[in-house]
């Protein structure tokens, strides 16, 4: 179990992390969702020991690891750009940790070869061992980076946007494979990403990092359906967040959120009774294949999005620039306390 308590890190005037409290349980796929610049990579670098926190404690299973040199921490790190050793072959890359680690390196070549080959088979690289790392594809490099880390059997594996450098098809396949590989090895993965779909698909648990703090850490469906605060909701890219005062009808005050797919549109003044409603101008639509997204501008300038599924269309024909009523069921509303 990896535990971070009150971890802070500043770069000059910029605060990257301020008092992060975070737990990655045993045998878990944990996704960490954050916008670019939210401090995700910094968090991983602190755990791996490439940098040290200004304040706070990092520990694994109770022993404190901050302050320890990174090569003795026994933590795996998969780099976004893979960071393969360019002068070594695929097999030499994978065997590097086993052969050259300072703590308990393997000396028997046969054992190194066996473990390297087993791991390459696990990630689907059998037969590529003799290739130069410059002579393989992006997806294969990703596998080398993963195999190189996993073969050392680290206590936890940190993945820094591991799918960012891959194209869309490959990304979907690697998602499944990463999950399967993790389940076979039983080690915890901490996967950092800026994509909410990736975070929700991959994670047994998903944490949202914003403003240098963990906003919420929950199971994916829980997080998606019941975000605990406006920040968490904003990162899911599925919630309209606006002031309750915009709505007609009996709505409480403060910041509220309603999911894109739980909002309906009707002609101005035609909103059904008993449903909170607000007036907004239709801006434009975006057709995404199975779904269509419509953008509205509320009276205070807030952008609202309504999602429509092609198989069950429920929106009327919309004319750009015209005003409509947007309404939703009272129970679809989520209210946040405190500042947004």
């Amino acid at each position, binding site marked *: 179990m990896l535990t971070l308590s009150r971890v802070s890190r500043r770069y000059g005037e910029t605060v990257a992390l301020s008092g992060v409290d975070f737990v990655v349980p045993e045998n878990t796929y944990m996704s960490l969702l954050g916008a670019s610049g939210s401090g995700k990579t910094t968090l991983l670098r602190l755990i*791996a020991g*490439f940098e040290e926190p200004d304040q706070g404690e990092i520990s694994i299973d109770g022993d404190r690891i901050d302050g320890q040199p*990174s*090569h*003795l921490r*026994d*933590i*795996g*790190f998969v*780099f976004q*750009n893979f*960071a*393969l*050793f*360019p*002068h070594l072959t695929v097999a030499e890359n994978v065997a*590097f*940790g086993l052969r*050259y*680690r*300072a*703590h308990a*390196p393997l000396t028997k070549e046969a054992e190194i070869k066996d473990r390297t080959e087993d791991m390459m088979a696990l990630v689907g690289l059998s037969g590529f061992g003799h290739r130069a790392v410059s002579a393989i594809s992006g997806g294969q490099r990703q596998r080398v980076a993963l195999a*190189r*880390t996993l073969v*050392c059997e680290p206590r936890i594996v940190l993945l820094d946007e591991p799918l960012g450098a891959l194209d869309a098809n490959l990304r979907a396949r690697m998602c499944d494979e990463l999950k399967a590989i993790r389940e076979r090895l039983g080690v915890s993965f901490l996967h950092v990403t800026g994509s909410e779909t990736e975070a929700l698909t991959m994670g047994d648990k998903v944490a949202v990092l914003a403003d240098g703090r963990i906003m919420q850490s929950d199971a994916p469906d829980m997080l998606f359906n019941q975000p605990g605060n406006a920040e968490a909701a904003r990162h899911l890219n599925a919630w309209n967040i606006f002031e309750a005062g915009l709505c007609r009808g009996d709505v409480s005050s403060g910041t509220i959120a309603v999911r894109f797919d739980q909002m309906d549109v009707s002609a101005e003044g035609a909103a059904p009774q008993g449903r909170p409603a607000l007036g907004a101008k239709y801006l434009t639509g975006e057709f995404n294949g199975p779904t269509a997204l419509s953008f509205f501008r509320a009276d205070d300038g807030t952008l609202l999005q309504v999602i429509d599924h092609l198989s069950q269309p429920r929106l009327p024909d919309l004319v750009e620039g015209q005003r409509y009523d947007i309404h939703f069921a009272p129970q679809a509303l989520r209210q946040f306390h405190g500042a947004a």
Partner: protein
Amino acid sequence: MSALSTDTHFATPHSPAELREKKDRRRAISLLTPGLLWMFFFMVLPMAMVIYVSFWTQTTFSVNSTLTTASWKHFLSSATYLSAIWTTLRIWLIVLISTVVVGYPVALFIGLFVRNKTLQTALLVACVIPFWTSFLIRVIAWRPMLGTEGAINVILMKLGIISEPLTFLLFSEFSVLVGMTQIYCVFMVGPITFMLGRIDISVIEAARDLGASFGTIFRRIILPLSLPGVIVGAIFVSVMVLGEFATAASLSGRKVNLLGNIIVSQVGSLKWAFAAVAGVVLTIIITAVIALALRLVDLRKEM
């Protein structure tokens, strides 16, 4: 109608793609021409002339174009000349090693530990500052440093470490080695720094994350990745040191005779054929050294 149009199509001598290719080829040739002409007239032709002259007949004060191998026989059987070859090779090897020993750590510091590009450039420029003065001044400046009443001897005597001045410091092979190392070190630092600067820092972090200590990372990652820089630096240093004569002339007190010094003195006494023989021998040695260096590392891969 269709037959006619096919005919005209075939009659067109060049397609646009062919014309473009032709134009590209012409541009490439016009870029190459000045360099090729220069190389031909001022290198290939003189080189051939030197080889030719080495077979001319040498008399005491003149040389004539009757072909003979006498100069070659004289050169290869003379202990003076053979020992000059040996001295040249020995000094080259020692200077090569000492420039690596002094230069590599400097390059390691600038290329790997300084990650700010501006500071890196500033430090590299600082390495070149001695070159703002002339070669001769740099060489002769070693005399007041190393001489019997020079700075080093005075300081060591003042400190009471020695009671008599060290005489091996100046006008010896030692002073030649010191002078050459100082002058040529920067040619080693430059290429190595360049290669080290190209190493992705995350590659080193990855090795650290896999459990390797700094020593292991240096041996297994940093050193192999910077080796092409060492080879390029070694080629620069070798070419310059093997052809050297000025450092030896002004710092050795005529005790060290390099092939370069032999050429200078032979030309001075109008022994053109002997000088040509020494020149050819020197060229062969330099070619062999470069060929060997290029065999060690495949530079094509690094470009």
